[in-house]
């Protein structure tokens, strides 16, 4: 043994005598990542999300050294930071890009988990902890958006927080709590600052710890249908070094984007130029839109009439959104087939349907194909039609790929999402009417399939 190896062994002995690290090292040495017919790439998305979060923490701490919350200082300190402080512009740019990429990575991680049914027992709580982290990440985005106290942030926050009013009974109280008063003021800024730099990070770090603990205790989910764990990939060094390579690639991409596009790609909902300071006395400028990950909800709100079923439109919309998100949260308990380690194509199709549903609303919020003036009835019709064609195109690709390469035969939710888009965008039905027709047909088709499956199972020759 050379000197270097001898010293390492002495150090390990020293640590082991005090902290008993040998079982931990043995655990890590034998830890494996399952291999299967699907691509290994889906296993790395949790790691990239963690990487972007770490970048957020580091750049956030550096920004915090100059940022001063307050009506008279927030904007000024951000301006000073980005124009006068060496590399201040880079820190802000990396922080903003990393925030958006973290959400992209998180969404991809969530959908891959959903499609691969990695949520199935015994990993239900891993899904739930990830789901809560997703909600917290959106909270990070929303609270951080106001901190520069510029015009866009101020009015977007005013519009965004206004939504809380739609919560039945406690709406006004919640709005007051969120804003620290009836309007968006310096009180709101202080609250959002505390949320963004103390409350949410503490919660998030705690949840990451729980999420990782679950993953370490249970291991990564093996591919569906694999009953006996096969020989997987060694976590150390194979998976960990690959993870490191991917993180370095992410860092590279992050730096290139931050230098060449310091204020974002210029897409509405994905731009962060400081612009002018917020002036609460100015009227809100028209066409103000939230960040891209909230666009679908913003568009959905616009599709609801002011009053529906004796309730206010936004209230009904909030109810529908809450219902959809609740279904998404309890999927591990709903998907009984996956729980039996059997393929559950219906739930995969539900995921694809959700992607198409979100895609259409987001494209529409971007006013793709708009005429001038954007809000004219003719323009709204053209927007609906153009976005419908784009979504139908994407849907067709998804169906063909799934049909030919993955031999899927379950397209009820995808079909319902596309029917919804077609009825609304191509045949001019209102969004809600088209949605009601598509949802009713989908519900009938699902009921028919479920009944047929039960009948088959119940019959003597059926599969038990």
């Amino acid at each position: 043994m050379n000197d270097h190896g001898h010293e390492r062994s002495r150090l390990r002995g020293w640590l082991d005598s005090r902290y008993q690290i040998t079982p931990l090292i043995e655990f890590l040495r034998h830890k494996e990542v399952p291999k299967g017919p699907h691509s290994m790439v889906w296993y790395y998305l949790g790691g990239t999300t963690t990487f972007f979060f770490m970048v957020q923490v580091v750049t956030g701490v550096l920004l915090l050294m100059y940022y001063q919350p307050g009506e008279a200082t927030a904007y000024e300190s951000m301006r000073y930071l980005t124009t006068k402080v060496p590399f201040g512009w880079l820190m802000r740019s990396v922080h903003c890009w990393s925030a958006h990429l973290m959400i992209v990575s998180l969404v991809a991680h969530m959908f891959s988990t959903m499609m691969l049914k990695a949520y199935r027992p015994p990993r239900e709580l891993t899904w739930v902890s990830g789901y809560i982290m997703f909600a917290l990440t959106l909270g990070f985005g929303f609270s951080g958006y106001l901190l520069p106290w510029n015009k866009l942030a101020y009015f977007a926050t005013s519009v965004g927080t206004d939504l809380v009013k739609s919560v039945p009974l406690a709406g006004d109280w919640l709005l007051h709590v969120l804003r620290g008063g009836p309007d968006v003021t310096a009180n709101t800024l202080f609250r959002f600052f505390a949320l963004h730099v103390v409350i949410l990070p503490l919660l998030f770090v705690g949840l990451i710890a729980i999420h990782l603990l679950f993953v370490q205790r249970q291991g990564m989910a093996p591919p569906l249908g694999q009953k006996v764990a096969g020989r997987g990939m060694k976590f150390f060094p194979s998976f960990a070094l690959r993870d490191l390579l991917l993180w370095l690639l992410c860092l590279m991409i992050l730096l290139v984007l931050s230098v060449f596009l310091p204020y974002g790609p210029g897409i509405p909902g994905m731009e962060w130029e400081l612009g002018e300071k917020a002036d609460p006395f100015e009227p809100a400028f028209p066409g103000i839109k939230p960040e891209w990950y909230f666009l679908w909800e913003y568009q959905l709100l616009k599709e609801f009439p002011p009053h529906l079923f004796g309730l206010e439109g936004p209230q009904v919309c909030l109810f529908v959104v809450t219902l959809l998100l609740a279904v998404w949260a309890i999927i591990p308990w709903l998907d009984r087939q996956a729980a039996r380690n059997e393929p559950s194509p219906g739930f995969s199709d539900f995921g694809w349907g959700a992607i198409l549903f979100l895609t259409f609303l987001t494209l529409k919020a971007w006013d793709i194909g708009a005429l001038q003036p954007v809000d004219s009835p003719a323009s709204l019709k053209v927007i609906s039609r153009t976005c419908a064609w784009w979504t139908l195109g994407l849907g067709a690709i998804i169906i063909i790929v799934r049909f030919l390469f993955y031999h899927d035969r379950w397209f009820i939710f995808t079909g319902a999402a596309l029917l919804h888009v077609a009825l609304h965008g191509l045949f001019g039905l209102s969004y809600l009417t088209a949605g009601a027709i598509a949802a009713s047909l989908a519900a009938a088709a699902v009921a028919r399939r479920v009944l047929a499956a039960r009948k088959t199972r119940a019959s003597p020759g059926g599969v038990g």
Partner: protein
Amino acid sequence: MKRTLASTLICLLAVAGSAAEKPAVPEKLAALLTATNDAGKPVITPEQRTYFDGLNDHITALLSNATETEIITRPDHLGSILALGLRPQKMEVLLQDNCVLCHTDPEVQKPETLFSLAPPGGSNSHLNLRHLVDDVHFARGLSCSGCHGGDPASDKLEHSHVKEWPGTARDKDRAWILSFCARCHSDPALMNRFNPTLPTDQLAKFRESPHGKLLIEAKDSRAPDCLSCHGVHGMRNAKNPLSTVNPKRVHETCGACHANPAKMAGFKLPDGSPLPTNQVAQYRASVHGRALLERGDLGAPTCNSCHGNHAAMPVGLSSVSQSCGLCHAGAASLFDGSKHKKAFEEHKWAQCAKCHGNHGILKTHDAMLSSGPRSLCVECHAQYAKENPECSASAEHFYATITRLDQDWNRYNASAEQLAAKGLDVDPIHDQLGELADTIKQARAHVHAFSRNSFDQVADPGNKAADTISTLVSEARSEYRVRQMGLAASIGLIGLVMITVYLKLRRLERQADEPNR
């Protein structure tokens, strides 16, 4: 407990009792309010009824009185009064004035004496009831009898006009209108009671104006009187957008005569040429007209800003720069100190108007200084100052300097936008661009001094600002290059680490595979 319940009940009964105390609508008035037409539908509309229900007891009593004394006897008459939707103070004035009440009854009045919301002569008719109640005099309690005489409290059909009212011959010589209005408007003590800021010299000014002389001395029937500009019934404060003397409507009011060739026929300019009637059209297209009428800039001038109002008269040759100088003080002062002032006076040229025009002043452009086809200088100088080559050299110098500074501003502004999009600090560049823009503005104004030295003194900070901006732009570009180089170095370093990690990974995996072989 029982006592609490009892006291609560008493309170509730008292509240219910007080609600029931509102007096019932008198029988006659109630009958009009609920009357139906031949088709069986109520004559009083729901909106009118809602308005009536909101009236206070005093107004209701006045309405009731009008029905009891049979001044209001018909539901449609009552409806036309309720349809006005007046605030209580104005409604009180109206209901105490039997002139208005009687002259709004279609049963009693002939069409030419009936005030209604839709008079036969259109909305501008002097019989428009809406105009009458919106009149600035009406709001202060001065109603029909204030001008027409009679007793508004009397229900007898008598007219005893005030002595200044000339009776049947009042349209032949309308000069009496001046003194009629002046009874109040030239009385400082009286006017002070209503509006202390309102001047009382309108008649004195008008007498001295060409309009006044035409009306009083020449007794020309085409000459304007007070009513020509201010209207008859429905005179509003000049700040009211509906007023005929609101800044945005003055050009229409003046144009009613001055843009009408028939009315202007026979009137001549001092040089004997016919008085033109295209001023309003020119004004609308001018930089001033567009500022006021399109952009709504109330600081922009209209007819009376240069010509005056009650003392309206042509702007004299010597007073053009004074008139323009009210707003363009810098340029007017520079012109007054220039050598051109004397030359213009010798040639009897109308100072500012000679180069810029009068009613149709268009936006100026730098090519006015050039020797090209859009030049303003060349024509006069070729005729009157051709022996002085220094003048055209100065004009060329002005033109070249302003054009260069302007081009610099445009070029560097575009550079600043590009650099800002790349995330660089462009605040210092914007500061200098502001300095440059100010210099260009001042240099353009200083052209009016027609002095090369004076112009150069003003333009020099612009040259310095342009040099500073050039340096700042170069520095910002260098910084961007440094950023790119830093990025390339970082990418190289990260790439190197990645290659090392990859090689290490391969070696470890190969080592791990070897025992298995």
